[in-house]
């Protein structure tokens, strides 16, 4: 089963999550005005070379992202039809570079560290009444449960195939949604059992307006 973290002790693992995000940001900005396919391609190769820090396992898992290629092919076809092949090639390399680098950051950053790095960025949400802590937790949950949901979909697909001999495809969307929602229900219970989305910091007082404080 895939997972979103590769344990290791490389310099990239030790680099604070905030720096990694800033680095990713800078690299994107630098790459954005590039118009030469050669430079874009070397950017991509550099990103691939950087992947050596997570070793063979990293490259192997990168292959799981090959479905992104379909998107890139579409993008290229679009550019060919519009008569802008060169900028199409640049765009494709740029996107591949970004995907590879973002994946690398995910592979080398613990969720906890990522949340702490994101928290200051999300803090402005607090001013409009959205809890940044909740958003951060939601991001963690999405990342944690992606492999689980993929496995769930596989299981559902096998169950369908076992009885029909055919692939389920879109027909399994509804049952999958039901299973996913049921999982979400269980996880919300588990979260509540460990202090809920807001933690134990503000121990609650339930009751109609009366706040007992006889401790």
């Amino acid at each position, binding site marked *: 089963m895939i997972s979103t973290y590769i344990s290791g002790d490389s310099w990239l693992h030790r680099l604070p999550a905030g720096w990694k995000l800033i680095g990713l940001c800078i690299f994107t900005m630098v790459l954005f005005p590039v118009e030469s396919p050669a430079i874009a391609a070397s950017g991509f190769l550099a990103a691939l070379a950087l992947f050596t820090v997570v070793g063979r396992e990293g490259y192997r898992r990168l292959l799981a992202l090959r479905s992104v290629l379909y998107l890139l092919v579409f993008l290229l076809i679009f550019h060919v039809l519009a008569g802008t092949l060169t900028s199409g090639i640049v765009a494709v390399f740029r996107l591949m570079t970004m995907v590879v680098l973002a994946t690398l950051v995910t592979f080398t950053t613990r969720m906890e560290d990522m949340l702490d790095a994101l928290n200051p960025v999300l803090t402005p949400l607090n001013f409009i009444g959205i809890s940044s802590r909740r958003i951060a937790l939601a991001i963690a949950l999405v990342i944690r449960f992606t492999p689980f949901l993929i496995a769930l979909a596989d299981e559902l697909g096998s169950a369908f195939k076992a009885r029909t001999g055919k692939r389920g495809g879109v027909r399994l969307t509804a049952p999958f949604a039901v299973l996913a929602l049921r999982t979400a229900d*269980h996880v919300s*219970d588990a979260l509540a059992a460990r202090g809920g989305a807001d933690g134990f910091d503000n121990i609650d007082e*339930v009751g109609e307006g009366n706040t007992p404080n006889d401790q």
Partner: protein
Amino acid sequence: MPYLLSKNSNPTPSCEPREGVCVSNVSIARGGRIVIENLSLSLVEKRIALVGLNGSGKSTLVRALNGLISPIKGKVCIHGVDAVKSPKAAARMVGFVFQNPDHQIIFPTVAEDIAFGLRQAGISKSTTRAQAKALLREYDCEEWADRPISELSEGQKHLVCILSVLIMEPEVLVLDEPFSSLDIAVRTNLLSRLKHLRQQIILINHDLDVFDSFDRMIWLKDGRVEADGLPESITPLYRKHAMEVAGRLTPESL
């Protein structure tokens, strides 16, 4: 443990008794149906077994202990904390281990998940990580710290679930059919680990053999206590009842 958590830093509604778990005149409804009616129990023994056929109200009852479910009537008191008035304070006292680890583990890697409960209590990341690692070391699995949850075996996941709860130093450990997906060897190993804990344990399980050394067994039937006593005296009664029911079951009532 070299650290101390301020469990009572905030004023929380207190209740008597200060020891053990006390359930008095509790009624609980789920989905518009009364599942538990006027139940009273005083739980002070260290190892308590909760048995009953499906639908007898076991899971509902234990979920009221840590505030996951609020009773419509009555009072639940955990070591002096009123679980109805302050469910979070109760959740702090009662560690809850769920049936399926995939429904309990929230973070993608082991140490993060174990540290989560402490972080929820507002403790810094470096401290909680050190504590999580110390606990893993205590259980001879320090190298799991950065391992992705998805790469653990079922038994290992169960152990992580238990450690995630233990790190918060709860007074009571509630386990709702925790071992149903494990083989006998792993199950026996985890169970013997549980038996050595200082915490009071309330265990729901269908396999009655695990309750051998338990101090008390409570048999729930239709949301009421059908029998209550030593496992060696309750087990035969319960087993006999279950066999009778098995003979009468129709597809409608399976």
